[in-house]
């Protein structure tokens, strides 16, 4: 079967939507339904890898659909950053699917068909975001992503889920309608185009105040990047089933946010313009504050998922900082951090979910000694924590290294200190968890079960092992990732 | 000016009396009466503008050269019909309101509606 790269690109967006239909059609037969999901996620991964090969050979792949509004096409084009995002997303979708089959069945959740269907739409939207050729297309998929994940977040259907969903939708839809859309229309008005172009689309003599305001609108508008003060939706979304949280935090939603920020910084404003805008510095400090504050809040959380959520907010700040630094090191660091954080965070969430379904624990204080019961899970947790902190032998160190380089290059000393402190805080709030799980034997709430090993469902276990291995691989063999990240800036002008 | 516009000024007063009855009175029948006065006054206004000094009714006859303008007459014929149609419908509504609410006073009807809510 020889498909042109263009049709592969289109297929990778359409496939998940077709999958949705298939899932709904096969809703009554769980086995068939999940087989459909797995097969299509395999195909999607295959498509992404092929596209990646194409990109590596320097081919340019772009497709234009139809103009939604005059001169505003829905069109797609693959560049390295998008490719990177698409690869991560399609790979992790496969893993998450495997994981959720174990999780959902074990947990006996209701409405699983709705769950898988929305899941597939969400991935389709992510693909659309990753490959979008212009801001307009990106925005459309950005919104479909928000809406398709809403039923996932409120899956439980309880009063608490309703409240969480309210915040989730309120913040994401609110910021995107009020700020993001305004920023897009303003850009359209000022620059006359919305196409992503290396080096930006604004004229060199553009009024920097106006551009600066637009930048602020963008950063505030992209609520998915969870920059404080628009971060509330992330902890609120923790009411979702764990695979959803994993998806939100590692794969789809937050990554779509920071990805969009990177895209906007690089291809709408361009590094050169970005560095002279009057508001950049302010936004950098805001992101820095976000990093630090979120870490501090994370320390105070006893609920594991909530702690991980705040940790995510803090890590997203890193990526935003990298994008706003407007240096090559910063950009490389940011893009690599998308990948390394994705693997690290998804592992952590998988572990949290595994603990919940197996030991029915969600509070950190109750997890002492759990390592004896669930050694593989807790070991994976440990390695993933290292990746988030940025210590060998996990991939996180590389991205953090480049980010630090970026701050050094631009002599942003305060931010450098912020990053360092935050890493220390990471240690303080992540490492005690596996540590206590393995070594706090005195205060074991599991005394009656003894040390009998009772691990998570097999599917979940496989999934979390793979992502853990991924963390390590990213440390040992970061070359392809680095190449891809470097290629982002090397795109011919 | 006084003689030239006197007619129109009176018409304005008539219109406003009708308008006042519509918006200030609470009785549904009275409101429709007000509407009638309001509309009839507008008719008077139209007909006034059609008049020519020394003219006669626009029915062609020998020996007459000056006729009043027939167009406003035509318009007002239509408007009168519209007026009676509105009045009939309004009264029908008032009758039904009386049957279901037991009153044709605005305040009492509002009060009953508020109780329903």
């Amino acid at each position, binding site marked *: 079967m020889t498909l042109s790269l263009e049709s592969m690109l289109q297929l990778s967006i359409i496939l998940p939507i077709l999958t949705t239909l298939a899932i709904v059609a096969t809703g009554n037969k769980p086995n068939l339904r999940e087989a459909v999901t797995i097969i299509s996620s395999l195909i999607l991964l295959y498509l992404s890898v092929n596209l990646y090969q194409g990109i590596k050979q320097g081919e340019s792949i772009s497709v234009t659909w139809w103009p*939604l509004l005059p001169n505003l096409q829905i069109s797609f084009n693959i560049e390295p950053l998008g490719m990177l995002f698409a690869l991560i997303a399609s790979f992790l979708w496969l893993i998450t699917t495997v994981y959720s089959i174990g999780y959902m069945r074990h947990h006996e959740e209701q409405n699983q068909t709705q769950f898988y269907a929305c899941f597939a739409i969400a991935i389709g939207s992510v693909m659309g975001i990753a490959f979008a050729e212009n801001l307009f297309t990106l925005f459309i998929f950005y919104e479909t992503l928000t809406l398709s994940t809403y039923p996932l977040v409120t899956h439980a*259907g309880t009063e608490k889920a309703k409240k969480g969903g309210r915040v989730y939708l309120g913040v994401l839809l609110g910021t995107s309608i009020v700020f993001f859309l305004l920023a897009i229309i303003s850009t359209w008005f000022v620059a006359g185009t919305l196409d992503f172009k290396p080096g930006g689309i604004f004229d060199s003599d553009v009024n920097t105040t106006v551009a600066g305001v637009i930048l602020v609108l963008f950063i505030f508008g992209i609520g998915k990047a969870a920059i404080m003060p628009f971060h509330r939706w992330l902890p609120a979304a923790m009411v979702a089933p764990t695979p959803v949280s994993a998806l939100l935090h590692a794969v789809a939603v937050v990554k779509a946010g920071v990805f969009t920020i990177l895209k906007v910084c690089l291809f709408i404003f361009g590094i050169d313009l970005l560095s002279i805008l009057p508001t950049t510095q302010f936004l950098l400090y805001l992101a820095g504050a976000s990093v630090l504050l979120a870490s501090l809040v994370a320390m105070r959380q006893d609920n594991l998922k909530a702690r991980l959520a705040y940790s995510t907010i803090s890590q997203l700040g890193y990526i935003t900082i990298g994008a706003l630094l407007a240096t090559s090191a910063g950009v490389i660091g940011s893009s690599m951090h998308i990948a390394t954080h994705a693997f690290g965070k998804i592992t952590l969430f998988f572990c949290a979910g595994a603990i919940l379904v197996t030991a029915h624990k969600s509070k950190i204080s109750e997890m002492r000694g759990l390592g004896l019961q669930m050694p593989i899970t807790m070991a994976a947790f440990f390695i993933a924590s290292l990746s988030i902190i940025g210590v060998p032998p996990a991939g996180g160190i590389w991205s953090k290294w480049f980010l630090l380089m970026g701050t050094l290059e631009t002599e942003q000393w305060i931010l450098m200190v912020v990053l360092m402190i935050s890493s220390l805080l990471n240690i303080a709030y992540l490492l005690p968890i596996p540590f206590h799980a393995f070594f706090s034997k005195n205060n074991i709430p599991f005394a009656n079960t003894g040390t009998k090993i009772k691990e998570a469902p097999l599917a979940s276990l496989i999934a979390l092992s793979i992502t853990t291995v991924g963390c390590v691989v990213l440390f040992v063999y970061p070359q392809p990732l680095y190449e891809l990240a470097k290629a982002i800036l090397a795109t011919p002008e | 000016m006084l003689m030239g516009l006197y007619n129109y000024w009176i018409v304005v007063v008539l219109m406003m009396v009708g308008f006042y009855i519509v918006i200030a009175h609470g009785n549904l029948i009275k409101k429709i009466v007000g509407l009638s006065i309001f509309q009839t006054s507008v008719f008077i206004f139209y007909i006034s503008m059609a008049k020519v000094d020394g003219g006669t009714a626009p029915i062609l006859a020998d020996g007459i050269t000056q006729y009043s303008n027939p167009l406003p007459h035509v318009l007002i014929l239509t408007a009168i019909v519209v007026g009676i149609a*509105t009045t009939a*419908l309004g009264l029908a*509504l008032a009758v039904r309101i009386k049957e279901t*609410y037991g009153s044709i006073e605005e305040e009492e009807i509002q009060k009953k509606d508020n109780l329903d809510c």
Partner: protein
Amino acid sequence: MLTHLPVLQVIVPLMAAPLCLFLTRSRLVWLFALMVSGLAFLISALLLQQVMTSGIIIYELGGWDAPWGIEYRIDHLNAFLLLIISSVSTVVLLAADTSIQKEIPAEKHSYFYILYLLSLAGMLGIVATGDAFNVFVFLEISSLSAYALIALGKDRRALWAAYQYLIMGTIGATFILIGIGLMYQMTGTLNMHDLSIRLPEVAHTRTVFTAFAFVIVGICLKLALFPLHLWLPNAYAYAPSIVTAFFAATATKVAIYLLIRFTFSVFGLSFSFTALPLHILFLVLGLSGIFAASIAAIYQKNVKHLFAYSSIAQIGYMIVGFSVSTTTGLMATLLHLFNHALMKSALFLALGAVMYRIGSVQLSQFQGLGRQMPITMAAIVIGGLSLIGVPLTVGFVSKWYLILAVIESGWWPVALLILLGSLLAVVYVWRIVEMAYFRPPLTSNENIKEAPFSLLVPIWILVMANIYFGIDTRLSIEVAQAASQSLFGVNP
């Protein structure tokens, strides 16, 4: 026959209405009315096509040339409106037979269809005509039938709402009549085109100014422009569902059409916007309408009330686009005219389905409906998303142009306010979503099933139109642009 399309457009439903009395069974009357409305739709589509290819069509009634006779003058704007009205009417009628079974006593069914057709013909007549007084006559046809249709609602409050509407509507019509009289007095003509030529000579007079003010206020009453909107919520809430769906989509649109026609074509842009400070006036009224009505919508207990208030807010958007008075602004208004007709008819028709099954549209009755009537509720959700302005629905398209128009004029804070207004829409739409999906069904509603097929089909035709015209915007944008440009005197 093609040359007679303009008059057929109005005459067909107008003469079909009395014919209904000759049919005995209400099912037959329905089929007949549906056929007639479908024919009107076909005619309007042909008309639009004719206008798009060959420009303005003039039709002299009675063979008398204007200004002595009455002429129909179809340009892009009219043709667009005719299409909106006749298409919505047809789809809504499709659902009528089923819906009115439960809302209107059987012996009144034929009157219902007669009045419906008269109302349709009245609105088409207002839009098609090029004569100011003829506007008044057809305005009354459509209004009188509207009062009666609203009064057919089950609740006794429908009577009171219809009465209030009658009073307000008649005041509005009389104001318009006064305005037309003053214009006639200063120019001697009633033909709109002729007026637009003769008015500039006397534009400086106080009489013309007064005429303008009266026409505008009269239209705004019909338009339910904030703060003259008080008649609208109850009228929409207590009318039979079919009537609400039809009027919400068309009645206020016709008033907006009149506003545009009188300010742009008859009085002329330069006069209209200098005689009265329309820019700032309509901007302020539009924005306050958006906010006041959206906030009121949030607190409604009756979902029909809720969407009625939302309609007032949406009128605010159209008025803001109008107040910008640039080609883009007007285009945004026209697009929203079309798009809002699609949204609201879909939503109110879906409420009709709920009414059919439950017999009430109180918000509290929506508990658990997401499970019991999933297809209907999905329609309401999509309609709601469109109302919010989510991409890939029609609501997004019009909002996009509105913001663009506002930014083009440099009114940045207004853009922000408009977007904030959309957030309020999120709130009121989501109240329904949460009620339907996050609560268990009421015990009294346990046996509620999905709405019958005959209701779902028209609802989903409209919902699909909401999505289709949100994705393929060529038709609506092209027509709106052509209409807007021709009003500004630019040759498209």
